[in-house]
């Protein structure tokens, strides 16, 4: 069961990488978050931890519902094109993704000496998410794509946290969720402002400050 | 004795210049002026009235005294016929060099004082030449020092062996002397062509007794150099004791060697042409080189 959720995460991540429009990207993110929720829910069920249920619930509310909704709203409001703006085209991106997968696997096998094989797999996927998120931030031009990339990284960390230590202390998790949500809101407001001042959200063109 | 030595210098120095002029003229198959002409000149100048430039200041007026005083003071430092020198305790060879440069410093200033371009030209050239003379002179002093262990002038004015070092040193000193005493090939005392003048350009504004002082100072300085060169090439000491005849012969040889130097000077002057100013660098460089060779000879001990 857990494997299915993990594969779901992987596939949705790959969908995000090949996405060329913002909407597709956010859709991919929603799916990813949803599978993440499932995975967390499963762990909670398996370990019968009430705190994990709450966290899973928060995940569902914030990442599957609220944040994508917010992002959609922003897209609607700022009326920019749907394009992501790719520095690296989708084919090449997929190649990079393969590379990241290898790196993540290699790294996790270095890291995990005591843990089980399955745990290593989860860690690898988590790290993979971090790398892909990072990659999205570097290689996608629009501001919103960067926000999504950040969220992907964050998702990866969440997965990692639940994999390696059975989750962080409860209130830390809560605080992190809150933080993530606030940061997305704030970034969203800055995306508005960028759009207002520059009439686009191609952050690559924000290069007045240099040197 | 001090006064006697001073008087000897004052009296005999112009004679050397007259002698050189006479020899030169004779070599050029000319009658030439009298050998005593410098004395006539000095006397005539002393009797004449003086014209001062209105732009000059007190520097111009005091320079002749300082120049003459420094020349004579330098002359008193060497043991001309008293050993050791009467004023030995006052200064050594190095002091002698610096005392001469005191006179030159003021003469150069005085040359600038009148405000004519001749003076400036002479002053500039004089300082140029003299500053290049310094290292060569220093090397010569150094070579002498290495042989005798002191910069005291009296120590090498006795009898000593003629070594390669002292001979080469003497040659270097001779070259320096030509430059210092405004002789061909560095300067020409006989010309008044502004492009070539050095010494003459500086004293152009002087007249009367002050000019006489300046000329006398130059004669004395020349004699000091001749004496030193002679002492290096033909070293003899004072007779310990002897009869009158012996003393007479000694005296003749003692002064005769200075005339030999004068003769060589005259020969050189006749046979060479004056150099361009910037060839002087090479000329004095050569003197410096000779100085170094003298030092090396002294180090080796030959």
């Amino acid at each position, binding site marked *: 069961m857990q494997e299915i959720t993990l594969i779901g995460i992987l596939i949705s991540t790959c969908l995000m990488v090949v996405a060329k429009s913002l909407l597709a990207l956010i859709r991919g993110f929603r799916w990813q978050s949803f599978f993440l929720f499932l995975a967390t829910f499963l762990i909670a069920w398996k370990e019968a931890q009430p705190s994990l249920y709450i966290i899973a619930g928060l995940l569902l509310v914030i990442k599957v519902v609220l944040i994508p909704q917010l992002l959609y709203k922003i897209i609607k409001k700022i009326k920019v094109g749907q394009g992501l703006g790719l520095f690296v085209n989708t084919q090449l991106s997929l190649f990079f993704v393969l590379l990241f997968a290898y790196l993540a696997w290699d790294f996790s096998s270095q890291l995990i000496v005591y843990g089980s094989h399955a745990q290593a797999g989860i860690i690898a996927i988590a790290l993979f998410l971090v790398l892909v998120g990072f990659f999205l931030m*570097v290689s996608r031009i629009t501001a919103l794509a*960067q926000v999504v990339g950040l969220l992907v990284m964050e998702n990866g960390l969440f997965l990692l946290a639940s994999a390696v230590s059975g989750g962080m202390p409860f209130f830390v998790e809560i605080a992190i969720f809150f933080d993530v949500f606030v940061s997305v809101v704030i970034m969203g407001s800055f995306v508005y402002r960028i759009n207002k001042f520059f009439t686009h959200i191609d952050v690559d063109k*924000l*290069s007045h400050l*240099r*040197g | 004795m001090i006064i006697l030595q001073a008087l000897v210098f004052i009296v005999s120095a112009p004679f050397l210049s007259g002698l050189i002029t006479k020899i030169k003229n004779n070599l050029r198959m000319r009658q030439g002026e009298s050998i005593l002409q410098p004395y006539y000149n000095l006397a005539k100048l*002393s009797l004449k*009235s*003086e*014209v*001062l*430039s*209105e*732009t000059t*200041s*007190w520097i111009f007026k005091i320079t*002749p005294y300082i120049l003459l*005083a420094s020349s*004579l*003071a330098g002359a008193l430092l060497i043991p001309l016929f008293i050993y050791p020198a009467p*004023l030995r*305790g*006052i*200064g*050594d060879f190095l*002091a002698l060099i*610096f005392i001469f*440069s*005191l006179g030159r*410093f003021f003469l*150069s*200033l005085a040359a*600038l*004082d009148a*405000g*004519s371009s001749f*003076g*400036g*030209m002479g*002053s*500039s*050239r004089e300082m*140029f030449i*003299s500053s*290049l*003379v*310094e*290292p*060569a002179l*220093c*090397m010569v002093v*150094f070579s002498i020092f*290495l042989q005798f*262990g*002191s*910069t*005291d002038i009296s120590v090498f004015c006795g009898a000593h062996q003629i070594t390669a070092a002292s001979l080469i040193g003497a040659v270097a000193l001779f070259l320096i002397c030509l430059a210092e005493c405004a002789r061909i090939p560095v300067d020409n005392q006989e010309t008044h062509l502004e492009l070539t003048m050095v010494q003459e350009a500086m004293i152009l*504004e002087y007249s009367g*007794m002050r000019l006489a*002082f300046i000329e006398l100072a130059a004669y004395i300085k020349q004699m000091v150099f001749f004496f030193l060169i002679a002492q290096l090439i033909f070293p003899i000491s004072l007779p310990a004791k002897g009869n009158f005849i012996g003393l007479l012969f000694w005296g003749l040889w003692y002064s005769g060697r200075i005339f030999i130097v004068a003769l060589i000077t005259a020969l050189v002057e006749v046979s060479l042409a004056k150099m361009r100013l910037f060839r002087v660098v090479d000329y004095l460089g050569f003197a410096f080189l000779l100085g170094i060779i003298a030092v090396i000879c002294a180090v080796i001990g030959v």
Partner: protein
Amino acid sequence: MFNLSANFIFDPLSIFFIFVILIVSSAAALYSHGYLKNAYTFPRKVFAWVLLLIFVCSMLLVVTGSNLLVFIIAWELMSLVSYFFVVFDFQYNRSIQAGMIYIVITHIGTAFLLAAFLMIYQAAHSFDFIALKDACHLLPMQTRNTIFLLLLIGFGTKAGIVPMHIWLPYAHPQAPSHISSIMSGVMIKTAIYGMIRFIFFILGITSPWWGILVLILAIISCLVGVIYALMEHDIKKLLAYHSVENIGIILLGVGLGMFFVSMNLPYLAVFALVAGLYHLINHAIFKGLLFLCAGSVCKATGTRNMEKMGGLIKRMPHTAVYFLIGAMAISALPPLNGFVSEWLTLQAFFLGALNTLGGTKVFLGICAAMLALTGGLAAACFVKAFGIIFLAQPRSQYAESAREVSWSMKAGMFILAALVIIFGLAAGSIVKLLIKVSAATLGVDGSALNLSAYNLTLNLQALMPGPVGKDSYLSLPYLAALLVILGAIFFVIYRLAKRKSLTYKTWDCGYYKVGSRNEYTATAFSKPFRIAFSFFLFPYHKTQKVRESFYHVKAFSYETHTTPVFKKYVYYPLLAWILKFARLLRRIQPGSIHLYLAYIFAVIILLIMFINKF
């Protein structure tokens, strides 16, 4: 770890330097009263006085602190305060530039010093000089060599030895003149103090090459300084270049002392150091004097350009006399003080040559000859300076309208001029005192070096154990008396002769009007030197004709310049190289956030890849 219980040292060396500092500073302070008047507003005057006070105090602290930390703090404070003086007239770009060059180069020098100090500190784990002195002897050879080089560069920068002299001709002229006189006269000497204190006293000299290196640098400084000075027509810059030269002469004595210490010739080392210290105090006095005079001239004429001066001897008679005394002293003319110290230095070279072997003799001889050349060139330079500034007719309106300066300025100059003469005539006693200073510094019993008080007689038998060499003599009072008496005699003769004397125009070759335009200029004066040293100066000239038509040239301009070798071939390329590097570096930040993120990405990937290297 910091042991800062305010420790001070008052050994003869320190006291000597306190003396030097106080002499020049007090004269300069007196002078500044008149100098600042009418030139600055009241708050700025107060500021100048306060700064002066701090400046002098910091210098005193430098020479009395017996603690590395006190030393370095005082040292930096001294640099800082003098920097404020350099930028005192901060409305001029010249000042800003000079201040920048000065403080940056000083700071670099201090960095070297700091490195050296901390290396010394590691030896003893104490900042105290005495403790360091004991500990330094245990250091390995290589470390000591490194420390020596660092110290040499560090102090050399402050002292202004070539090629670190570059700041001197900028900074010294830009400060107010009384400060120029302190900076040039005293401040750069604190670097010599540092060298003596740290290299002789604390580090201890081991290798002969230390001394030889210092000698070579000193000779280069002498020549470069004086040649540049000859080319300079800005009076204060000229003096600044002469500081480079004179620091070279001082270092000849000091370097020779180092050499003798390493050759195990303690008495000679004492003697050489005496020569160096003597020239040090002499230079402090006469350079202080010359800068004060230059300040008077600048204040009176309002320009620093010599070519615009002339004839000031009639307008400023007092200043002219003082300047002449200073000029004579710096040109090493008897019977003034500069002559004595140059004579001593030459003697030190000669005596050293007697006690060494073979090639070293020739080397020392050539050094001495170069010193003589320097002396000759310096004399030429000051003939030019005095002649062009004070003699003949005024060359411009500036000089025409010059008036003699106020009493306090005259008093300041008078004190130093009197000292120039005193330090010349009383050479015997002063050398005796200095022998005590340098013997105490080197830890040698100086009583064996006996000199009679009025008759400066070097007893060579006492100087050296071996029976080589005989006495040399020099007696300044008698020499002065001789010169005065002879001069007086001729003056009397002249007076007795009573020839008629009349005043007329300078001979003008029949030309109807000889004016100041006909006078020889400073540029013309230095032309023979410019050509003779063209291999180093690289002179070039520009001519330009302004034509009205093809046939008629309306105006003709001619400029001649020399190439500043060190600036052009050392400092500019270095600076250009650094700036080029910086500009290249600047390109890594073009404003693209994606690139920035990629940096972080790359860093993390690289670190993970090479994690085992850490």
